[in-house]
């Protein structure tokens, strides 16, 4: 059976070159970079090389990069660390309604500790209006965190415009670029931001690798206290294989972003165009044009996502869903609900995220196996029966 992985938003495979870059630090080179001998020196160089590679990917300074263990850690560090460092100026934080839980729940944790939180809404395409961010700002606002793009629905946010507003008001601006860094061009100076989160496993680097970029001069309070690794901002002996892998993945991404985009966009567009053409009552979620190159997201009416996932998996196809039934918390995706989609329609959420290993035949295969699966589940669905009946009566 054909195997088709279309869940690159969950995680990407590791590139062979990245693996090669990691291997020396799993095999022989085991030193602690804080040590003052040859063993330490060997790994210290690897960290600094990776730091430059990551900095170059996003147009920042190497000394502004702090390595972390995930996008989640980067976001926790940014939201909590930046807010705590500025709290003498105020205690008001602004985030959007569609932030990843690592931003959202970090902000909620601060709220419990006495900070105040404003959630900026999104429109039906998942776009955060910069003017809504402006309206939410107060004299005591110390931090705005809006994601660069949403990995679930693919919408790219107007960060440049939002950054102009935060600068006018002298408020620190963080963006969660986990879905974009290494995937689309990201330049911290063009974006006009103060801090940015990224994660290696989103662009063919290792899991357990991430980084936070913080503009020089912006204060941040460490989450992890201990030694003076990462300039005293993130204590703990460095994960050299992960860092070296992240660096290599960043270097490769920088060199091949346009080639990857050229490969992904036709696959994405074929899904976005063909799926609604072959299946009735399918809604594309996210922005129709301004979206990530590898993101095709939908809501398929009258059926539920987990059942779709299971049947697709039985045909060798891996996708994901934001339906309540697929989440461990049994709650529909807050992103989809924030866009004004009903709970019922959200149940039919399906996210297909092609990667650089996919080809046109993979997409053709999915377009072939999915319609009968949808049909099969609809034949079982009382909602579909009701819809068909009402439609027939209405047509008379």
């Amino acid at each position: 059976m054909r195997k088709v992985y279309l869940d690159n938003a969950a995680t990407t495979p590791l590139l062979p070159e990245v693996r090669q870059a990691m291997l020396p630090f799993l095999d022989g080179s085991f030193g602690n970079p804080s040590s003052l001998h040859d063993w330490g020196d060997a790994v210290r160089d690897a960290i600094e090389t990776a730091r430059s590679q990551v900095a170059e990917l996003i147009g920042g300074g190497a000394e502004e990069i702090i390595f972390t263990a995930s996008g989640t850690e980067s976001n926790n560090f940014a939201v909590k660390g930046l807010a705590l460092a500025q709290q003498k100026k105020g205690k008001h934080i602004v985030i959007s309604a569609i932030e990843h839980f690592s931003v959202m729940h970090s902000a909620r944790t601060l709220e419990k500790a006495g900070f105040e939180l404003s959630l900026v809404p999104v429109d039906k395409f998942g776009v955060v209006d910069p003017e809504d961010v402006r309206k939410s700002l107060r004299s005591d606002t110390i931090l705005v965190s809006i994601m660069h793009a949403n990995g679930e629905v693919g919408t790219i946010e107007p960060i440049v415009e939002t950054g102009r507003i935060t600068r006018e008001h002298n408020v620190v601006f963080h963006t969660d670029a986990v879905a974009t860094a290494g995937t689309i061009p990201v330049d911290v100076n063009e974006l006009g931001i103060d801090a940015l989160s990224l994660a290696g496993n989103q662009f063919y680097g290792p899991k357990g690798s991430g980084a936070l970029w913080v503009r020089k001069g912006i204060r941040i309070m460490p989450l992890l206290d201990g030694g003076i690794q990462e300039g005293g901002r993130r204590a703990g002996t460095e994960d050299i294989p992960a860092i070296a892998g992240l660096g290599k993945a960043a270097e490769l991404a920088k060199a091949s972003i346009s080639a990857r985009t050229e490969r992904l966009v036709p696959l994405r567009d074929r899904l976005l165009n063909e799926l609604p053409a072959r299946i009735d009552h399918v809604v594309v979620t996210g922005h129709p044009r301004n979206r990530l190159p590898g993101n095709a997201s939908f809501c398929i009416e009258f059926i539920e996502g987990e059942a779709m996932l299971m049947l697709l998996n039985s045909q060798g196809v891996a996708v994901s869903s934001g339906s309540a039934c697929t989440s461990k918390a049994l709650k529909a995706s807050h992103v989809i609900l924030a866009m004004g989609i009903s709970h019922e329609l959200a149940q039919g959420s399906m996210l297909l995220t092609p990667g650089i290993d996919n080809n046109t035949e993979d997409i053709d295969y999915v377009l072939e196996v999915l319609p009968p699966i949808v049909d099969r589940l609809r034949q079982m669905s009382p909602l579909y029966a009701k819809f068909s009946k009402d439609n027939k009566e209405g047509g008379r």
Partner: protein
Amino acid sequence: MPVYSEKVMDHFMNPRNVGEIEDPDGIGEVGNPVCGDMMAFYIKVKDNRLEDVKFKTFGCGAAIAVSSMVSEMAMGKTLDEVMKITPKSVADKLEGLPKNKFHCSNLGAQALHKAIENYRSKKKEEIKSDD
């Protein structure tokens, strides 16, 4: 994939008794307002037994497997026997359901009981109108 038992997978992949009954003797519908899941059961009764049971379900793999299993457990049984089917007995027959899904997906027995109640109340009406 969710951690489902072989039995759940079997009933999900090959659900028994899917469909509707034309002119049923009773209909029972149960919805989960939080996620929007829904189950509908249709029954045909003869000599106080379920001569036919069919269902339609909008929901996850577990919800579909539950519906299928309930229909199988109920087929041919007396109404009183069917009223004794519980969410737990259904889950046991399915060799267990994931803990977090036990309540939300396990609405089959409830939907079927509603269909029987619907049949019984219709019957009462008939007896009244016969008077």
